[in-house]
């Protein structure tokens, strides 16, 4: 079943066309990767889906309902959570408070009550349990990325959108992170939509890869299909 679907999405910034009639789908319970060279429009696509930007044309459907043009806080409440490529922690708040913001605003978490507990659980899940009472500004880059994931999880999403969460990790840590994201999908019945530059991780984890290039969808397929495709190789390596 399709959880997220984009139909003919376009976005222009002044004279620059960041996205040009892009259509795609993300099936429920899968890990779908979004890749492409720098400037391909990956983060713009995320911003359109999450409601941070409004598309100039096209439609977005989430769980069977149209969410085109809804603001970020509304899409979040519908069950769509995202992390930011450049992390945006609430610097003067503790890690626990950072996560608590997500918890108190989530209609799904609230029903469970006792938000402190679930905020703690989310921090523990990403390995920040011991830093719960440290202000977020004191975290290093990798910890800030983890905090982003903890906050996103705390909204109890159906769809988790990750924007380059592996940057700055070493090979071993990447392996752990991939296992972690897989376990999230399996244990919490999440669907993961994932922008990533680390191809090794994508090849291991993703069931489907969508390739963007210069604002257009270049192709969509399994990891094996994508690496063999001459258009993809050309887009990354040039002629």
């Amino acid at each position, binding site marked *: 079943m399709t959880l997220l679907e984009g139909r003919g999405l376009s976005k222009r910034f002044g004279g620059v066309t960041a996205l040009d009639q892009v259509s795609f789908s993300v099936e429920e319970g899968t890990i779908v990767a979004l890749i492409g060279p720098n400037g391909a429009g990956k983060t713009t696509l995320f911003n359109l889906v999450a409601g941070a930007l409004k598309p100039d044309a096209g439609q977005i459907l989430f769980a069977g309902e149209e969410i085109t043009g809804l603001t970020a806080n509304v899409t979040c409440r519908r069950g769509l959570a995202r992390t930011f490529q450049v992390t945006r922690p609430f610097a003067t708040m503790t890690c626990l*408070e950072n996560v608590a*913001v997500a918890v108190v605003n989530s209609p799904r978490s609230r029903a469970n009550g006792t938000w402190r507990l679930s905020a703690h659980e989310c921090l523990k899940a990403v390995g920040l349990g011991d830093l719960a009472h440290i202000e977020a500004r004191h975290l290093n880059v990798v910890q800030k990325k983890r905090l982003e994931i903890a906050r996103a999880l705390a909204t109890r999403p159906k769809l988790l959108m990750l924007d380059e969460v592996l940057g700055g990790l070493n090979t071993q840590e990447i392996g752990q992170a991939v296992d972690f994201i897989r376990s999230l999908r399996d244990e919490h019945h999440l669907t993961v939509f994932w922008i990533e530059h680390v191809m090794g991780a994508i090849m291991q984890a993703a069931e489907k890869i969508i390739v963007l290039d210069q604002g257009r969808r270049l192709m969509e397929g399994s990891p094996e299909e994508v690496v063999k495709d001459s258009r993809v190789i050309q887009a990354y390596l040039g002629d």
Partner: protein
Amino acid sequence: MTDRRFFVILFVAVGLLSLLPLGLGVYHLHVMIVSLFYVMMASSWNLLAGYTGQVSFAHAAFAGIGAYTSGILAAKFGLNPWIGVFIGTILAALIGLGMGILCLRMGGIYLSLTTLGFSEILRIVITNEYEITRGTMGLQVPGLVADYSKPAYFYIMLGGAMLTLIVLYKLIYSDIGLNFRAVQNDERAAASLGVDVVRMRVLAFTVSSALAGMAGGLYGHYLLLITPEIPSLDQQFLVLSMTVIGGMGSFLGPIIGAISLEIFSEYIRAYGEYHVLVFGLVALVVARFAPNGLMGLAEHRLRGRRKASRTVSAAAG
């Protein structure tokens, strides 16, 4: 701070303060009453500037709305001043809500400019609508109590300040307060986690305006003469300096800033016009050496000492 600890501290402080009229003369009691007015003003302005990052210059204007609403109703229509203060508070809240919806989407410097403009317009209207407000001559209004007495007003203002602080505390240390701080830190991140940013800002603006309206209403009926001085920018900047010097974004900061600066300004009153200069110098020194205000300084000291003692004990062990 836990709920219980806050209320214990608050009631002990109020209990101690309510002994003051026994020992203080009329003049000192007056200074305390004015201080309490500024505690209300600075604390409620702090909700905006310190907790949601909206620098409004209309806070004194909202106090003016409260004071003039209640004053005009009492002086022209003979309404009970208590009911007048209540209506003034509601009106300040409604105008705050309207302004909030109109201009909070702008945010940043545009919000500051709009509120600055609003404040000046209000002052000009009040000054020129002589028939209704008696302009710079001032509007004579009845008092809140039948027999005018400083101790009675001291207790009224103390009650008002207590109410203000309880409302602020309940708000700041609730889920909504968490959202306020998230909005102040990073609007986009807050929105991505489900926070309705515009609604939070409008809410903070409305509550803060209402509290300023109440403070202004009570103060006006204490002064018995309401002048355009209450909604003036001078007043606004005084409230601003009290909050900044005390410590913006901390709960205690504005309280300490308001009381200490009011008392301080009484001491330097003797220097006439120069007292503005002294005030500016103090603000400069604080901005340079304690950018987080007196509370920031105290916290830093406290933390430093704790760290030092830990190092010592670690070395000893």
